[in-house]
């Protein structure tokens, strides 16, 4: 890690630690019960004591999330390519796509459970539903924001559709794709948990329910922290891949 990265993420990190400290102080000063609001150190202990129980649930949720994201990427890019083929198709599909986003996914989750069963696929689909839209829209906007003069240049050299896609449109839309993907991955873990909440045997969504039913409040909090950590981790991975793939985009 070089000085520049430290200086960019440093302040946020310091703030985060300060908030945790404040929380810790608040709990010990007010003697609020562990059953209402456990302190951060308490949550950490609970996590360390139970991490072997945690692990299979974490693995399950990660698996659902990764498959869901990959499917969303494939369908999202496919949609963007389709929207790009003609203005007519774009005008027809784009409003439909936006409207579809107003359907509450949480209301679909029970249906998916009925259609796809208790195993992993109903959750994968929920993750995909959460992630698909930001990817499709970002990629599509990336396509439509390409400099018309560049398209003119390609047409003047009689570039084929495939070559225009491969050499111009995809690389141009990559930065937009990554901003969409970053939004998508921050939702993705939550998406998987929503799916699990509705019905599953394993996963963080199941675990948090079990913990809450048993009034194991520090484990509920531990699950929330794990979820947040996993989301941030995914975000960081996408950011790193983006930096590696788009060296020209770093100004």
């Amino acid at each position, binding site marked *: 890690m070089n000085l520049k990265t430290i200086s960019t993420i440093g302040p946020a990190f310091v703030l985060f630690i300060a908030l945790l400290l404040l929380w810790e102080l608040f709990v010990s000063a007010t003697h609020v019960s562990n059953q209402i609001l456990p302190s951060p150190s308490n949550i950490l202990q609970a996590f360390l004591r139970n991490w072997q129980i945690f692990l299979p649930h974490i693995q399950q949720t990660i698996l659902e999330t990764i498959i869901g994201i990959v499917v969303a990427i494939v369908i999202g890019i496919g949609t963007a390519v389709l929207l790009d083929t003609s203005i007519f198709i774009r005008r027809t599909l784009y409003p439909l796509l936006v409207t579809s986003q107003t359907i509450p996914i949480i209301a679909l989750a029970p249906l998916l459970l009925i259609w796809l069963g208790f195993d992993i696929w109903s959750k994968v689909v929920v993750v995909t539903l959460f992630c698909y839209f930001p990817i499709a829209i970002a990629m599509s906007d990336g396509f439509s924001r390409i*400099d018309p*003069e*560049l398209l*003119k*240049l*390609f*047409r*003047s*050299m*009689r*570039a*084929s559709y495939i*070559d225009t896609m491969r*050499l*111009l449109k995809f*690389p141009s839309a990559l930065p937009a794709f990554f901003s969409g993907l970053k939004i998508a991955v921050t939702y993705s873990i939550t998406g998987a948990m929503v799916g699990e909440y509705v019905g599953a045997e394993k996963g963080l969504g199941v675990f948090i329910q079990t913990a809450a039913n048993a009034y194991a409040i520090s484990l509920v909090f531990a699950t929330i922290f794990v979820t947040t950590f996993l989301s941030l981790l995914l975000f960081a991975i996408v950011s790193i891949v983006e930096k590696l793939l*788009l060296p*020209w*985009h770093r*100004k």
Partner: protein
Amino acid sequence: MGHPKLVIQNLSKTFDKKAVFSSLSLYINQGEFVSIIGPSGCGKTTILNIIAGLEKETAGTVHIDKIPGYMLQKPLLLPWKTTLENVMLGLTLRQVSEKKARQLAYDMLKKFKLSEYANYYPHTLSGGMAQRVALLRTVLFNNQFLLMDEPFGALDALTRLSMQMWLLNLWQTYKSSVLFVTHDIWEAILLSDRIYVLSSSPATIIKEVNIDLSRPRKREFLKDKKVIAIEESLERLLLSIQ
């Protein structure tokens, strides 16, 4: 001179019932450098677009033997590709093998003394340098017939001058035929064998001027009394139609 490289007869173009130009006839001989000047909006870019096959004419005919190389005002280099890869773009699009395209592009960079920039990315190049790279990309696509739409319009005066000389050198190397659009009368005189002057829209050709200056052209020519007289008459003409 051989047969002409480009023959346009009675060309007309109408956008939404509005005639941009009508019944234009012009030609370019093999190896000739021809410029078009005219007021803004008279259809210069549209003429080049029609020749390049990007737009359809409303009436008239265009004869060319091969798809021309088309250079625009912006360099339009792909930011994720190096100078070398940008120069080879036209070959890649023609399905020339990667290895051969690289070799040809590198030879081209070397010939015009830009090989040290081969692995630079566009954002590290100056405006003039980027436009040189764009010109080489165009020439590697077709070195016999070039369309240029105000290619130096965005450059500062000094860079522009060195680009003009560089272009003439390149043009003489390949004996290309060039159709050059510009707003700059001095630039047109310095570069061209012939200049077409268009009126404002609906445009027609109102004058054709031969520039009988020796080659290679030198900047000092622009101080010549005869040249100054041509420039003044063209300027008067352009002012009168605006």
